[in-house]
């Protein structure tokens, strides 16, 4: 019987400041979130791969209506990682300063909100910041 959630290596690596994605050995697809089957070809020959976290801002919003436990405003968006997959992520930057196409890096950070993450309660989360390139 499996005793460890499949995603556990991601959170363990994130606590060590490394961002992991998934790679398919059969079709070379890089994907996120991690799962035991490749969503492109269905192969189970998939494994963890470290990402640089660097990528390009694909879309961004500043959200004004938020849930209990979150600040009044949230800046978040989708980042297209250089390593392949897109990831929905908080963005630690001023909304006014952000544009589609900006270079960013997704990295580990302390989780700042009062949202019940269950078993991941004390795990770090991730956020994007802008890069000067």
């Amino acid at each position, binding site marked *: 019987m499996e005793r460890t959630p499949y*995603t556990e290596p991601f959170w363990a690596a994130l606590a060590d400041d490394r961002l992991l994605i998934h790679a398919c050995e059969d079709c070379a*697809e890089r*994907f*996120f*979130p991690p799962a035991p089957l490749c*969503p*492109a070809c269905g192969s189970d020959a998939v494994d963890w791969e470290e990402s640089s976290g660097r990528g390009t801002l*694909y*879309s*961004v*919003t*500043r*959200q*004004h*209506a*938020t*849930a*209990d*436990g*979150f600040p009044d405003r*949230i800046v*978040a*968006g*989708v980042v297209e990682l250089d390593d392949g*997959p*897109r*990831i*929905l*992520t*908080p963005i630690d930057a001023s*909304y006014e300063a952000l544009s*589609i196409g900006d270079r960013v890096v997704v990295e580990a950070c302390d*989780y700042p*909100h009062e*949202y019940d*993450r269950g078993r*991941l309660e004390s795990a770090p*989360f991730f956020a994007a910041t802008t890069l000067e390139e």
Partner: protein
Amino acid sequence: MVAGTAQLPNGTYSVPERDLAMTVVRDVLDDADIAPSAVDGLYMPSPRPWTEQKFFSTAMIRLLGIEADRTLEVSTGGTSGGKAFQAAVRDVQSGAVDTALVFAVERNSTVETTGPYFEYILQTFESEFESPIGMSIPGIYAQSMQRYCHEYDVDRDDLAEIVVKNRDNATDDPETLFDSAVTRTAVLESRPVAEPIRLFECPAPCDGAAAIVVTADPDVAAAVDDPATVAGIGSHHAASHHLASRHGSMTELSAVRRAASEASAAAGRSRDEIDVYEPYAPFPHVEAIVTEELGLVDRGEGVAACLDGRTAPDGEFPISPSGGCLGRGHPPMVTPLHNYVHAVRQLRGTASSQVPDATTVMTTSEHGHVNGVTATVFERGDR
């Protein structure tokens, strides 16, 4: 054949969902001119998680005294009503059921947006990697609106005209949430909800209920004065979850295209044979993209189609003459059924924004970020 339709006015109700459901079911049975005992299939979207009554369909079955051969509660967000209806249609077509009752009920006035509603919405995201970010539904549609304007060089302010049109279409209908139209300026000056989306560009949550009866029973069908038929159904779910898809632009809503194509083919109707569209389009850029995915205009031309009047009730391909969920108010479990009710009104010639001589209407429902879609074609039957 559609034997009857009913809806309660969108608004705020202080009675339990059960009471709204019993009222709208009584109304639809009246419209179909049948007793509850004629119903042998009951279908509904699962009520929202904050609804006190669970086992809702079972509670209703007892209250109505129905002996049902098929029952179904569907829980797939905004497509729930569409999937409940399509299951009813398939069961009637297969002969498993003679007369199917489909109804939906929802109260949003009982919850704070920041409380149980938001908690539920967060839980619809990927639980480990996305829910903790705190995104709302407008928060994800804001990003596709931004991308849409970016990719097709669309003037963001022009999107307000789709809201203006839909609010205008709904103004004369006393059963909608609003009793006045809005101006472009009012839309653009309403408060930001998730930039670039503003408040009047979000569908207003409200309470509501609607119902529709589908039958293959010749006795029930013979008593219908203004018959409408379900000519074709289609459905598709893209390989995506909210904004997350592996490839392609988030401004392409392929599930609309594929569900609509299937429904059109099943109805034997090409694009130019459909007179009216009542899509489930909760934000203005979604209506623009739906217009494109339906093949009515090229990509990036959906807003221009509205600006040019082509989507108006008297236009070349009327879209949301009822106002859609932006114009009518939006109880998401009920909105797909509202679209059916308004489609049937067009075919009966009783719509408040009537398209002259409408004989074929297509409706859609969607959930998530238009990840999953249903499409249904209704036609005027022989009198």
